[in-house]
């Protein structure tokens, strides 16, 4: 079996709202291995967002252990966690979160600004390379408002790739996109995964989850079901099968 990138055991998270205690996670055991492409699914309130926050080192668990690429994040302070996010993680958000009035290239460079080991020249080259990987080599100097939704999400994906993370965490990455563009984005994800990238993808859409290798369903703060996807979608084939329609977005 390949190396475990994410190893979570008996993870709990409680929130205190006034006098009430909300148990967002009630003991989660989970492993994500190198080369995995896992969907975390569940209705709202199931704990999947909390799980993603903890996996993304943005939040700390109340109880339990989380090892990311062999590092135990429970013992780390805020600054060390920031370093961990910078070196080992790539984030993709539903609303892209690109900096406005900043070129695609500069947006992709952003994570490397917080890595003092990367010099200016290397930073630019790596950002260019990441943009090439997502097929936006010709849009480097475009501002986000000059790009379509799909293109903006590609820039965000390039940004998550630029620091060569051990795992990419995507939060409803296709939530704002139409079907065709969603499939195109999933095609990109599948290609990245084929090239060895480990991806954790939070979604509530079952048909998007079918693009992945494995589905983990959360319910009431626990894993309800964990399954391998047997009849996996191939994005490239699906796009070809889509009816030819008026294309509003390229």
């Amino acid at each position, binding site marked *: 079996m390949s190396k475990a990138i994410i190893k979570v055991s008996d993870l709990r998270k409680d929130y205190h709202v006034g006098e009430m205690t909300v148990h967002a996670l009630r003991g989660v055991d989970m492993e994500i291995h190198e080369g995995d492409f896992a969907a975390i699914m569940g209705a709202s309130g199931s704990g999947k967002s909390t799980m993603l*926050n903890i996996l*993304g080192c*943005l*939040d700390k668990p109340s109880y339990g252990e989380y090892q990311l690429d062999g590092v135990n994040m429970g013992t780390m302070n*805020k*600054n060390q966690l*920031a*370093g961990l*996010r*910078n*070196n080992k993680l790539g*984030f993709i*958000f539903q609303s892209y*979160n690109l*900096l*406005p*009035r*900043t070129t695609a290239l*500069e947006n992709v460079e*952003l*994570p490397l*600004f*917080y*890595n*003092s080991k990367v010099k*200016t020249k290397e930073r630019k080259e790596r950002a260019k390379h990441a943009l090439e990987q997502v097929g936006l080599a010709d849009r480097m100097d475009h501002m986000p408002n000059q790009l379509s939704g799909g293109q903006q999400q590609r820039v965000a994906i390039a*940004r998550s790739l630029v*620091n060569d993370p051990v795992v990419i965490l995507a939060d409803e990455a296709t939530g704002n996109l139409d079907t065709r563009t969603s499939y195109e984005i999933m095609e990109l994800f599948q290609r990245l995964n084929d090239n060895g990238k480990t991806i954790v993808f939070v979604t509530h859409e079952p048909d998007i989850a079918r693009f992945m290798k494995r589905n983990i369903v959360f319910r009431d703060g626990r894993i309800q079901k964990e399954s391998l996807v047997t009849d996996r979608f191939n994005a490239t084939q699906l796009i070809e099968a889509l009816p030819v329609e008026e294309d509003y977005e390229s």
Partner: protein
Amino acid sequence: MNYINLTKIATTALKRNKFRAILTMLGIIIGVGSVIAMLSIGESSKQSIREEMSDMGTNMIFVMPGQQRRGGVMMGNSNTKTLTLNDIEALRKEAKNITEVSPQVSTSGQAVNGNNNWPTTIYGVDIPYLDIRKYELEDGRVFTEKEIKSLAKVCIVGQTVIENVFNENVDPIGQTIRFGGIPLKVIGVLKEKGENGMGMDQDDMIIAPYTSVQRRMLAITHIQSIYASAISEEQSDAAIEEIETILRQQHKLKEGDEDDFQVRSQAEMVEMVSSVTDMLTLLLGAVAGISLLVGGIGIMNIMFVSVTERTKEIGLRMSVGGRGFDIMMQFLFEAVMLSILGGIIGIIFGTALSYLASFALNMPFVVDTQAVGLSFLVCSVIGIFFGWYPARKAANLDPIDAVRHE
């Protein structure tokens, strides 16, 4: 994160909001500009007053009759007749720290020539007076000892009087002016001197032998004041002391008696005027300083808005690895850049303003380098001080909330 990156991030952020950055800087620009302008204009007016006063002779000393009461209330010194020609004699003989002495008696009246007349003042003086007061002759001559002794009806006139009393193209030398009913022959013309530091016309005067004015016009035996020159400006204080000692002896004042005269030096006057302008400069500078403070508050205000507006950006920066410290430094840098950039523009603006002012007011152009350095320093401090709180707020945001902030 290194500082080059930090500067880049801050500049890009400012460039994204150019108009707002300029508006924010405006407070600092006006603040610094007015501080620089006020201090520079203050300094140059001080210098111009100093220059003008030294034109009157910085080593000049004058003695007025009068009693000075405690608390500085002066009592009717115009009627005091304590100074006499004997005092002049005594000073000439005994004082070692002064080079020249002259009595002065004066009276106002109409100077008449033909159909022209002009209200002016006639000063009855001795020959050294012109030296002491730094008056120069443009034409003609000074009266002689003989003319003084014989109460000669001669005079030297200033340019203002000439302009008003004589028709154009008339050579005043040899002409006659009637003053207080007495005809005076013009033997000399004074060079133009212009206004003094207090705005008084120094050319509006007639000079005559003191004997003539004292006896023929005023019919008195005492003199109204004494003018003297100290050996040098530095010797002024010593000279004052010496004059006081000699005059006390002359006036037979006992120990404990108050002086029945006052001795003042030009150096003292310069100091006094300087201290007044210093005070004024300080006051104006303080007002300008307040506007600088207001500018700083403007920066804080905008930084707060900026932090709120860019909450999502802050969340994103944190989730890609920005530490709280990095975020704080970014916003602090932005605030400092705003204030320093505003400061630099303000310095240029203030310097230009004081240049224009010195040009318009005909004063020497002085840039108060201390003020420039100080306001630069103050700007950086303002940037850090007013940028600190918003920057801390940004740094303490929770990345989870921030990145999902709408």
